[in-house]
């Protein structure tokens, strides 16, 4: 009973906040709603006894990715109204695409994994260790894509740095020899300024 309650709670939360991501006017609010969506989906995962995936979703997406995302969104002074100027114009098209996609997802997975019967996970014993199981397939059966994904992450770092890094700046370096050899006339000079008008 309580599991069903939690399931409905988190599902409703995920759907509602996902809708709010699109609807809300300010980008910062949209990002915050996305955070809640992630947390709700993590809750659903934990309900399915996939605690590792749930926790990692929060850790990586909420704890790191969305933090930086918010960081950027807060710095940019984006005008929410201007951003959604084409919203109504594109809405019908978006709805058509959406309904087609939805129809095909339902058609594709309905017979295998839809219905509330699947929302109730099989009870595993306390010894069930999702992390150990995941690790044992990740490093054996899926070793090859795992390594490839590692290469992909390394590449992403290199690509990002090569596009943004513009050489080291030594501005913050303390140079003792400069400090010692400095002369008074390098630091101090007299200049004459006109008196500014007093208000």
């Amino acid at each position, binding site marked *: 009973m309580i599991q069903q309650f939690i399931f409905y709670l988190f599902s409703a939360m995920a759907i509602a906040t996902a809708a709010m991501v699109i609807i809300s006017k300010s980008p910062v609010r949209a990002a915050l709603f996305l955070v809640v969506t992630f947390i709700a989906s993590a809750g659903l995962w934990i309900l399915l006894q996939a605690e590792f995936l749930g926790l990692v979703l929060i850790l990586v997406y909420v704890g790191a990715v969305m933090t930086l995302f918010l960081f950027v969104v807060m710095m940019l002074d984006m005008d929410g109204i201007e951003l959604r100027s084409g919203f109504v114009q594109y809405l019908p098209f978006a709805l058509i695409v959406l309904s087609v996609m939805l129809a095909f997802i339902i058609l*594709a997975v309905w017979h295998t994994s839809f219905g509330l019967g699947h929302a109730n996970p099989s009870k595993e014993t306390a010894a069930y260790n999702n992390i150990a199981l995941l690790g044992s397939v990740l490093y*054996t059966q899926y070793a090859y894509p795992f*390594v*490839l994904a590692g290469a*992909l992450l390394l*590449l992403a770092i*290199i690509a990002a740095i*090569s596009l943004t890094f*513009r050489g080291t700046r030594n501005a913050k370096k303390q140079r003792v020899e400069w400090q010692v050899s400095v002369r008074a006339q390098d630091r101090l000079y007299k200049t004459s300024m006109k008196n500014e008008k007093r208000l």
Partner: protein
Amino acid sequence: MLLQLPRITPLFPEIFVLFMIAVVLLAGLFAKPRIAGRLTYLLTQTTLMGACILTFRFYDTETITTFNGMFIHDPLSQVSTLFVYVTTVFTLAYARQYIEERSIQQPEYYILTLFSVLGMMALISAGNFLSLYVSLELFSLPLYAMVALRRDLAAGSEAAMKYFITGAVASGMLLYGISMLFGTTNSLDLNVVASTTITLNPTMVIIYRFALVFIIAGVIFKLGAVPFHMWVPDVYQGAPTSVTLFISGAPKIAALALLFRLLTTALPSLHLQWTPILIAISITSMALGNLVAIVQTDLKRMLAYSSIAHMGYTLLGILTAGAVGYSAGLFYMISYSIMAVGAFGLLTLMSRAGVEVDKVGDLRGLNARNPWLALMMLFLMFSMAGLPPTVGFFAKLGVLQALIDAHLVWLAVLALIFAIIGAYYYIRVVKVMYFEEPDSQQLQPMQISGDMRFIISINGLGVLVLGLFPSALIDLCRSVF
């Protein structure tokens, strides 16, 4: 759980390249800035040649799958990767001087190239949607970054942005198609998907078809054929020529291999569905590519439209859904990438510090200044147009023959008409080079170092030699299927 080490010999080239990426990365980091560029260049070329040797050394004629079906090692993968190495070696040789003279960080260029090559190798050999998708990203992500690598070029950043966004949408579509297939077949393994889709459960067929459309859309984007061609001209024009050179060569082979994997390995039973889609794509690609190319004055843009047209011809071979057509398509793609790398390579060589050669008019009177380069360009242009003594002729011939064998004569006729239209703008380039007076300030011949001269000669003459003796390459492509 006891770990069973999977069979690892087929992966030696991949492992070697990944290892060498780390070496190049460290070399670029710790070498003195003065020599870092040259050092990483030499290491990168060594890597590619080493991988080439490894692929030769472990060449297998039978198909081996390893890592739980994640990795397919078959003649298709080996032939394709071989030509990926070859075109990349040529690409880097052409690009070296260009990037040395411009504000492009050299070690990064080589490292990103190597990463992309690794992604292509993995993509070509992918036996599972998971490894396929990850390697697809591994292969395209460096390309996006490379387009924007030249920072003082605003057009480059704009092109990179377009490329990245459309590429992300294409990846999303591919992924969506894959997810539909996964939903219906419950498997990510290409062979399992193939065996499951054979039994055409009527309610499932409609999902298969939609999955097919999304998957083809994703691949067509990577190939750059018509409904998803809009990035091609902008990216080719906006990117630094050295990067355009790379994009026009090896990635096309990899994208073709991706198409083979998805259509012939995973979904061969749906060929009645995908044939009409490919027919539509190839007709529109040939038409749009060839017609729009005529009005272009920017040489890079013209070659971009020509590449769209060539993708159309390549697809002609595949849509016949037979071994003859497949090998004709592969032959077409390999010869196209050799020609494209040669043509863009020539532009790269002629571009000097501060002077970009990218207009058709820039070639005016090339014969008077550098007769040898003009001759090479002549071969390349004739080959692209599909004129007889060159490899381009046999490529077109093979594709048309496959079409006639498949009783698609009307399509063959259509392709021929577009080829004749296309010949116009290739020959216009030749006319500009040979029959127009050079601009007065460009009278003196361009200085091109000996090694570059050697490489462009190999490339240009290669197009001719492969055209005179095409049987070896044709046999190689036939042996694959």
